[in-house]
């Protein structure tokens, strides 16, 4: 029965990640808690926030982020590096320093997804080649993991919409019967 427990844990982690929205992914190995409370994060390393960017205001020079279950705010200034990575809806790692009552971001880095064991990466060039061949000739099954609404608005030709929630609920039914088919998963970005 151990297997069922593991699957449940994975399902929970996926769901927790799903709540974070978009394309946010942790390790996928199921060992890291996606819903770690902020207090624990702060104990571990008081000057780093990891989470989804909820908003960026250039006028107030402030970034708001969802870290675990909390919403936090960090100020930024002209010395803050990597502000390109502070984009609303995307996962980021923000290093900051405390100055008086405020926290100031020093560096913003994208929070990149790690590949699960046994899964390899595919680049744009190879993707373009495959899509040009089509799923039959190319022998592939292309899965778009984003929410259905975003798929509807615009997706890679020949891709199939299987949002993460659907994948958790009935993955095997939605994927091809032949387990050796090349499956290519993608979503809304590298994070």
């Amino acid at each position, binding site marked *: 029965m151990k297997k069922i427990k593991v699957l449940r844990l994975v399902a929970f982690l996926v769901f927790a990640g799903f709540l974070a929205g978009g394309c*946010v992914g942790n390790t996928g*190995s199921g060992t890291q808690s996606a819903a770690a409370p902020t207090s624990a994060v702060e104990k571990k390393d008081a000057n780093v926030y990891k989470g989804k960017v909820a908003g960026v205001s250039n006028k107030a020079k*402030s970034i708001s982020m969802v870290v675990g279950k909390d919403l936090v705010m960090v100020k930024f200034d002209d010395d803050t590096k990597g502000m390109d990575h502070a984009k609303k809806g995307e996962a980021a790692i923000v290093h900051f320093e405390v100055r008086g009552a405020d926290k100031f971001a020093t560096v913003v880095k994208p929070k990149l997804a790690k590949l699960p064991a046994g899964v390899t990466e595919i680049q744009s060039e190879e993707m373009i080649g495959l899509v040009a061949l089509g799923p039959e000739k190319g022998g592939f099954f292309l899965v778009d993991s984003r929410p259905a609404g975003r798929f509807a608005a615009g997706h890679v030709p020949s891709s199939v919409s299987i949002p993460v929630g659907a994948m958790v609920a009935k993955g095997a039914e939605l994927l091809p019967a032949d387990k050796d088919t090349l*499956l290519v998963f993608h*979503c809304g970005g590298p994070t």
Partner: protein
Amino acid sequence: MSSKSAGLAKKLGYTNVKIYLQGVPGWKKAGQSVVASDAFIQKGNIILVDLRSEKESAAGHIARTVNIPYDELEDYLDDFDSKAPVVIYGDNAKGARKELAQAGIKGVSLIDGGLQGYQARGGKLVSGEPATEIEWVRKLGKGEVSSEEFLVVAEEGSATQVVLDVRGAEETVGGTFSNVITIPLDNLEARMAELPKDKEMLVHCTTGARAEMAHTVLKKAGFKSRFLVGDLSCEGGDCTVE
């Protein structure tokens, strides 16, 4: 999220699982087009553009189409709302997508297989003169208040609602609305005791970015609020919203 799904597929016994980490943004960056679903083309809140000639378009186009012949596209670029999802079809759709992207209109999709593909999947066409003017109204997002509703409360007051201005002190010099509480976003958490628990707060700044952040903070703290997205300008004590 793709890594989660790929991990699940691996656990289900699939032997050949890959991830395209760059995802849809990477695909577009590589110069490739995305396609919209047929249901979205029929029902979505989109700008649907037929790039063919007037004559071809009148003979048969998808309902709700705006006909903008490709060689006239340049004249219409200012009419596109950069927030609007756009679906284009007709010859030159790929070229038009690039032209639109250069003009800052990035949410552009094509039709899978073009108009022929659409018809082959059972998509219907209508004949007659298509529209020639772009008319698109943004739908309010979650937690947003319309500028009409906002202005009534801001100017005339309300027993159940109040406007919360989260701009900085130096920005409110030009003026504020009459029925308003002003607390800069930076001080919001420290000054929550000043906020009414029994009224819905309609939050504004100058664009909507800080207002949305404040809305999120207020919601978490158990207050009722919505936020305004729109360009605000104040002069001589009076504010207007665009």
